[in-house]
Structure formats: C-alpha cells, structure tokens
C-alpha cells in the first residue's frame, strides 16, 4: 500500500502550485455567485408576508452560520489528520481555518442581531440558534488563543488540534442542550430558525448565496494557507527562489 500519493497530497509545494493554478478560477466563480445571489436576494426576491423586507438578511445570516459550523468541523478534521498522520500541511490548513471561521461566526451573530431588531424589537435575543452561535464563537476563540499561546509551534498545533476535536464532540451536546434550555424558558415565541416553507422564489437566491459563500470560504482558506506555507517553508529552496523571482518582477516594475 504505497502512500506516496497521499503524502504527495500533503506536500506544501504541491498544494502551493495547485492553488496557484486553480485559485483565480475559483475566486471568479465565488465573485459571480455572491454578486448574483446578493442582487437576486435583495432586489428580486418577493417580500415576506410577515417580516417585510427585513427577511432579506436571511441571505447573509444563513450562509454565514452554515459556514461557521462547517468551518469548525473542517478545522477539527484538518487537526485530526495532522495528529494522526503528522502531515504539516493539515496543521497549516487548521491554523488558517480558525480566523476565517471566527470571522464568519461573528458575521452570523451580527446579521442575526440586526435581523432580531425589526422582528423582535431588540438587538440581542436569547434565541436558541443565536446562543449556540455565540458559544461556537467562544469555541473558536479558545482554539485561536491556544494556538498562539505556545512559543513552540509544534506543541501549539497539537494542543489546538486536540481542542478542536474536543470541541467537535461537544458541539452537538451544546446545540441540543441550548435548544432544550430554550424550550424550557420561552416555549411560546416562534423560533428564528424554523425555516418556514419558503416560497421557491425566496429559496433559490438563498441556495446561490450558500454556494457563493462556500466558494469564498475555500478561496480565503487557500489564501491563508498559502501564507502559512511561505511562513513555515521560508528556508526551503523553492520558497527562496519564488521570493527572488517575485522580487525581481517588482524591481523590474520599479525601473
């Protein structure tokens, strides 16, 4: 069972070259999807009967919370691969996934809060989904803080990988217990998240936005990972040559 292809998959050089080729196309696709979805959702989708136009924030809130959660699982998976097969690249992917996930979770919280104001009259509502999203943000902060607390890079990667795994085990428990807690205290009010059977005209732009957010997520992840690769492999030959080549380009441009 030769694992050559698997380890080749894990080589930073291969990842860097592969992303140099594919990244422009992926970012173009992300741009098209996002702008189309946004214009469609904000401009063309029909108004919601009860919430009026404020429901349009769903086109930002739902994709962001999807990505926030999916991002955490991706980060934990990258950490697990790093721990089990000791592939340096997967640690780099984990390190890059953390800040993006945290930013998207914050975005989900912000859009949720802004959405709460017109529908419920106050920015912060202890709704089940919003509360679980807040705890997810704390989980992200835990991983980020642990990552940069160690001066030994190796220990930092392993500790935050384990924390991400522990967090993954806890996420379903947290979500279930927050839902249960929510029904305990406010059984009557409608839940923000119960996706009302949406009119197809409203639903299609949401799908486009979710796809757009996924593409954007992978573009950003690749960009952050490439920076991490350069930082970690700065002593290798190919990085030195790459840097030399790019700085010449800059000098020629200057003359």
């Amino acid at each position, binding site marked *: 069972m030769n694992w050559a292809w698997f380890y080749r998959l894990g080589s930073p050089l291969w990842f860097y070259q592969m992303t140099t080729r594919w990244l422009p196309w992926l970012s173009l696709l992300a741009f098209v999807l996002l702008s189309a979805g946004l214009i469609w959702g904000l401009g063309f989708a029909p108004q919601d009967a009860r919430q009026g136009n404020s429901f349009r924030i769903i086109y930002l809130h739902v994709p962001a919370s999807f990505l926030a959660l999916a991002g955490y699982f991706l980060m934990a998976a990258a950490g697990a691969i790093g721990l089990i097969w000791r592939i340096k690249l997967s640690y780099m992917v984990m390190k890059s996934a953390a800040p993006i996930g945290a930013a998207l979770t914050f975005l989900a919280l912000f859009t949720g809060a802004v959405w709460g104001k017109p529908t419920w009259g106050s920015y912060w509502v202890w709704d089940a989904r919003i509360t679980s999203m807040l*705890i997810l943000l704390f989980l992200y902060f*835990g991983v980020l803080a642990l990552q940069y607390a160690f001066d*030994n890079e190796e220990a930092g990667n*392993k*500790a935050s990988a384990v924390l991400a*795994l522990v967090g993954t*085990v*806890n996420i379903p*428990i947290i979500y279930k217990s927050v839902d249960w807690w929510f029904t305990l205290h406010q059984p009557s009010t409608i839940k923000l998240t119960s996706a009302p059977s949406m009119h197809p005209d409203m639903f299609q732009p949401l799908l486009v936005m979710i796809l757009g957010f996924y593409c954007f997520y992978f573009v950003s992840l690749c960009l952050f990972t490439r920076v991490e690769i350069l930082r970690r492999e700065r002593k290798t030959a190919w990085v030195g040559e790459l840097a030399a080549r790019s700085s010449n380009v800059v000098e020629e441009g200057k003359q």
Partner: protein
Amino acid sequence: MKKYANNGFYAYLRRDLRLSHRRLGEAASPLIFFVMVTTLVPLGITPDPASLSVMASGIIWVFALLATMLSANGLFSGDYQDGSLEQLLISPQVLVMPVLGKITAHWLVVGLPLTIVSPLLGLMLSLPEAGYLPLMASLALGTACLSLLGAVGAALTVSLQKGGILLALVVMPLYMPVIIFGGATVQYGIDGLAWTGPLAILGAMLAATVALCPLAIAGVLRLTSIN
C-alpha cells in the same frame, strides 16, 4: 513485569489527597472563594429575599462552576514544574488510570466540599425549601463533570506560564451544557416538577466525561510535553 508503588488509580488518588492535606489552606481556597463570592450577590444586587430566591439556584451553580475552574489549574502544573509529570509519562502504566486518580482527588478536595456547603448558601440566598435536595444532587454530579472537563483544559495549558486565564477561555464553552442542566434540575425541583429528569442527563454527561476526558488528557499530556 516489575510493579511500582506509583502505578494506578489509588496510588495517585492517595498521593494527591496527601498533597492537598499537607497544604490545607491552599486546598480550601476554592471553597472559601465560593462562599465569599456568593455574599457579593446580596451586596451587589439586592438583599430582598423575594428576588434573591428567584436567582439563588443559578447563582450557586455559576459560582460553583467558577470555583472548580479556578482550582483546575493546579491539577498538572505542580507536577509539571517539579518534573513528576515527566516521570508519570514514562512510568510503566496506562496513563488513563493515574489521570482519573488525580481528578477524583481534585473532586474530593474541591467538588464535594462545594456540594456540602451549598445548602448553607441556599439559606443565605433564601432558596425555596424544595430546592435544597436537587441542588445538592445536581452539584454532586455537576462538579464531577466540571472537574473532568477542567482537567482537559489544565492538560492543554500545562506547559504555559500564564495558563490560568487561558484555561478558563478554553474550558468555558465546554461547561455550558453542564450549567444548563444543573440549573434546570434545581429549577424543576423548586417548581415541583420531576427534577430527576435533568439530573439523569447530568448523570449521562458525567458518564460520558468519565469515559472520554481521561483519554483526551492522556493524549494531550503526551503530545504537548515537547519542550
């Protein structure tokens, strides 16, 4: 296979209890913290018994959580400083048992006294009559859960100098389900509902953490003892 005095669950349980016994002042500080900080509430918010009794169960649970978390740091940092953690890592035994022994010792020194003292604080915060039994039951199980989860945080931050506050940051989200069901148990008791329901869920959480946390801790101690 040669056997050693320091192998296994009871060896570490006895040793840690003896260590805490030698430094009783230090061991009792979480308890004193728990009592003192609970007296802040009437001073800070309101001494009026009616409004206190509404908040009593939540307050006691939150401060029990904080007391356990503050004391979790000492679980491994003492051993790390004087080198006995390294001796533990290379001792011929499965790492899970001594870790469980240390956590049980931590619970006996911190969790149990909190549970025993909690009715006294219930009195101070005018907790309704029906709340005392569920309070003690939920704290007994809950503090054990908190000790186990806090130990995971302690293992993650053991090699850091300023690990204390980071431990709180790392462990706090993991504590949230425990406090939800802990508070709910007492609330159900006060409202006259069957409070054994949430208590059972707390028991399930304890079973899960007893099974999984020592494994995670053993893994983390081996991985991050690099320097």
